[in-house]
């Protein structure tokens, strides 16, 4: 029977801060994307996932919360932020490997989860760097857990061991019940993350952070694809400034011929 409290793990990824992402450029030789010197922040969808844990905890649903991140120093920084936002403890999978692809990330997270009593895995629906939108779904399939993507509301049903969720879909809002254990990916309207206060940041320093090396997880690091080229986005010619609706109508009708 039901009434198990939630033991949540939340995955966080460092990305270029969305407020400076307009400055991202292709390298002049088209060999990659130049993000050097740009501020790094927690992927905004993951931030929503962390806030969701905090909200569920303040409603009394959470027994324990753990944040996990895979990467170098930036991953550790994101874990510190998650701890300051209210997560209980952190697992840092340490690696300098730069091109870990979604399937490999999902496999690594599965091994991390297998070693815990987690019954809900939360993460953003996509990371705003590679825009893949895959890891949550892949992880759910690999674990054989329930899946809820693009989630904009979560209501636990502790009697039935289910989560009642609302999903943002192309046709509107879909309401599903998903049985625990489950993987959920978070969408924009789930909450508005609040930034940690200084005392929270200070107290987070004493929260436990477990370090795990990539090798310890014994997952084959595999490339499913390789990037052979980077192309700039198509350029658009400079537009024409018009002074009135009448002029716009005429242009659309006779020049652009779209109305």
């Amino acid at each position, binding site marked *: 029977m039901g009434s198990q409290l939630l033991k949540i793990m939340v995955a966080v990824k460092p990305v270029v801060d969305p407020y400076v992402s307009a400055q991202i450029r292709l390298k002049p030789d088209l060999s990659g994307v130049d993000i050097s010197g740009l501020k790094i922040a927690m992927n905004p969808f993951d931030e929503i996932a962390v806030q969701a844990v905090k909200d569920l905890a303040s409603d009394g649903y959470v027994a324990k919360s753990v944040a996990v991140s895979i990467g170098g120093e930036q991953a550790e920084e994101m874990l510190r932020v998650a701890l300051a936002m209210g997560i209980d403890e952190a697992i840092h999978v340490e690696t300098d490997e730069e091109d870990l692809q979604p399937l490999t990330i999902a496999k690594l997270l599965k091994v991390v989860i297998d070693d815990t009593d987690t019954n809900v895995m939360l993460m953003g629906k996509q990371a705003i760097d590679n825009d893949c939108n895959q890891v949550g779904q892949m992880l759910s399939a690999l674990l054989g857990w329930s899946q809820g993507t693009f989630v904009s509301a979560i209501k636990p049903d502790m009697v039935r061991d289910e989560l009642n969720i609302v999903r943002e879909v192309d046709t509107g809002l879909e309401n599903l019940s998903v049985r625990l254990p489950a993987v959920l990916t978070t969408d924009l*309207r789930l909450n508005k993350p609040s930034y940690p206060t200084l005392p929270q940041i200070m107290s987070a320093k004493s929260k436990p952070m477990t370090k795990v090396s990539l090798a310890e997880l014994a997952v084959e690091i595999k490339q499913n694809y390789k990037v*052979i080229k980077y192309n700039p986005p198509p350029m658009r010619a400079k537009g024409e400034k018009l002074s009135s609706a009448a002029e716009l109508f005429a242009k659309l009708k006779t020049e652009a011929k779209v109305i």
Partner: protein
Amino acid sequence: MSVLVIAQHDNNSLNSVTLSCIKAATEISASVTVLILGYHDLKVIEGLRPYKAVSKIIYADSSSYERFLAENLADQVVALAQDFTHILAPATTFGKNFLPRVAALLDVGQLSEVTAIYNAETFERPIYAGKAYTVVQSLDPIKVMTIRPSAFEPVTEQWSEDEQAVAEDRLAPLETLKKPFENNHSRFESLISSESKLPDLNTAKRVVSVGRGIQGEDNLKMVYRLAEQLNAAVGASRAAVDAGYIGNDHQVGQTGKVVAPELYIAIGISGAVQHLAGMSDSKVIVAINKDPEAPIFEIADYYIVDNLFRVIPELTRAIEKNS
């Protein structure tokens, strides 16, 4: 080479994003099988059969697939996967929901939002909200990918009724699946859809989109009047959705819908990178904003720096008068 396309539909009619996926499939191989999973979906099957580009249709008519739950769809696709070199679904919330599961269960990667096909193993896809496009070579035995519908013209060629009368075997042969996949993980409860007589945003030829500049839900009426005059879908920036002016299903951008209509009219939208990612491939872009520094003007073909509350009614009247 043999491609499987998973059809998007509502059990009643085929969504034309499927026809865009079929177009992408024909650029890989002449052998294109379409999988239709649904419930009481006979009309969808009949609607697809006349398309010349379809070599075969596999379908299921089962309550297990009525609500397109990811777990069920993925298991069914995996059960069929070994006959195919490529598995394609539209990069919509339908396709994005189950296709990564398919890839993981097949132990292969997935390529998201493919915008061009170079050859059977090399594809183009955007990263960083379209600030760059990567050309990637898949190293997997089965290529699993979501197709950005706006990047591929839907296939249109159908066998005429006369041609069908001469040789009925021209129509794609049908194969039916008898044993549906069920799961005990997820249960559908309800769907709240915004009812509209206007075209579907994903596939509309014209889109009228609003941003925070519209200042309130009440002012949307003006925008809907313009959309009706143009037979356009109504889109929105994230700011307008977050402010509660309009529903999430209208959002255009990096994390919303990606559209490329013939005409895109951006009203009171400043043009954040995240929004541009969802519409910058539109053929003709019009921007109306009172802020002369609005970044949307950088990509607009025509723009007016003025109060939208004056321009929009005037434009609507001009169209009314001339139609």
